[in-house]
């Protein structure tokens, strides 16, 4: 999932390919901006990131990967977006952080790195050692600016 799920997805893919030599994992980038339900409820239009799905999703088992699972609205729009590419055999959801108390839609992840009980006035920030921020791998609960 663009933009922040890409770091985790790349790392999982690399690890799996090391563990299971010879395995092929199709890898794509999905941006769900144009499928969001909060367009025009924001000050400015959201800018999309690149979507790049080079393989046929029909009949495949697809795992959506994102870093922080919060309201669930992004994943809801991602499901719509993904289904416009074809009919996967199965779709699962993998997240690094599940903020389980903040859900707006009935969606539950299949694979969770860590469950966090953070309140809405807080923000969960995930840093990766290769995301260009130079802060290394870490998950932070910080006060939300809003």
């Amino acid at each position: 999932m663009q933009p922040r799920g890409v770091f985790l997805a790349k790392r999982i893919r690399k690890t799996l390919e090391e563990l299971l030599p010879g395995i092929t994992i199709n890898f794509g980038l999905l941006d769900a901006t144009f499928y969001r339900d909060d367009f025009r409820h924001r000050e400015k239009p959201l800018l999309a990131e690149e979507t790049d799905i080079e393989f046929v999703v029909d009949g495949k088992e697809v795992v959506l990967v994102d870093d922080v699972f919060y309201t669930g609205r992004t994943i809801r729009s991602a499901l719509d977006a993904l289904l416009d590419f074809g009919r996967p055999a199965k779709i699962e959801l993998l997240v690094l952080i599940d903020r389980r108390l903040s859900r707006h839609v009935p969606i539950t992840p299949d694979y969770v790195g860590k469950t966090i009980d953070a309140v809405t006035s807080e923000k969960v920030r995930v840093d990766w050692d290769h995301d260009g921020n130079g802060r290394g791998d870490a998950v932070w609960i910080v006060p939300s600016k809003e």
Partner: protein
Amino acid sequence: MSNLSVKHLIAIKDLQPEDVQLILNTADNFKEVLNRPIKRVPTLRDITIANIFFENSTRTRISFELAEKRLSADIINFSSSSSSVKKGETLIDTVNNILAMKVDMVVMRHQSPGAPVLLSKHIDATIINAGDGTHEHPTQALLDAYSMMEKLGEKSGKRLNDLKGVKVAIIGDILHSRVAGSNIHCLKMLGAEVTLCGPPTLIPKHIASMGVNVSYNLKETLEWCDVANILRIQLERQDIKFFPSLREYSLYYGINKELLNALSKEIIIMHPGPINRGVEITSDVADSKQSIILQQVENGVAIRMAVLYLLAGRLD
């Protein structure tokens, strides 16, 4: 996240360079959407758009309509030939009546320069200019620039981010062309060098003050340029004779294969359409592989989706 500096798209000269970049970058995303199996996104499903055309159009009208449909907007189409405009209704009355039916955005083509500005001052909807007389045709300029950047970046596999140092010739009926006006502003903003070429009667006096070169010599201009954007002779706007005959025009300013073959490099050929085959451009040039005329049409949909998306984001 970013925002356009304007609430309407009336003229390229109203835009900032950042606006142009924002539109072109957003068009990249929509171009990808147009290559998907399902070429439609639900983004504008709560928006209603009226396409109001007081002047004939094929490409622009279909392109806007398709862009709107690909964004899931509701559409109404209106053309003046079958409407109450014929009974004497004014422009503002016509549009206000359409808006009373809860329309959010208006895409308008009109034969009078300035009609979209007038409208934007009197009505409460987002206006997109789809060509106003001889004034501007902003989405055409944007899609032309986008197509050039795409073609010139083809070898490196990535669209260029600007047109710095690119030499563009705009050839033909500059005087009656709204495409030329918009293109000059847009190309200059992106850093291109522009030369206008055509018979002296069809090039406005003092146009060099826009920061462009003027040449009356087609051969020299073609030898100089990287891209040639060839404009149609707009006979419908010419109330007097600007040149003796179409035959003479095509002899001096028509682009044919022999001319292009004699050049030291392969230049890119563009035309906003509709083409007058055999007048400003011959068929073998229009259909050659150095012509990107059909890519321009394809990119037009992505550009218009980007404009609609970004302007819809500014609606209250």
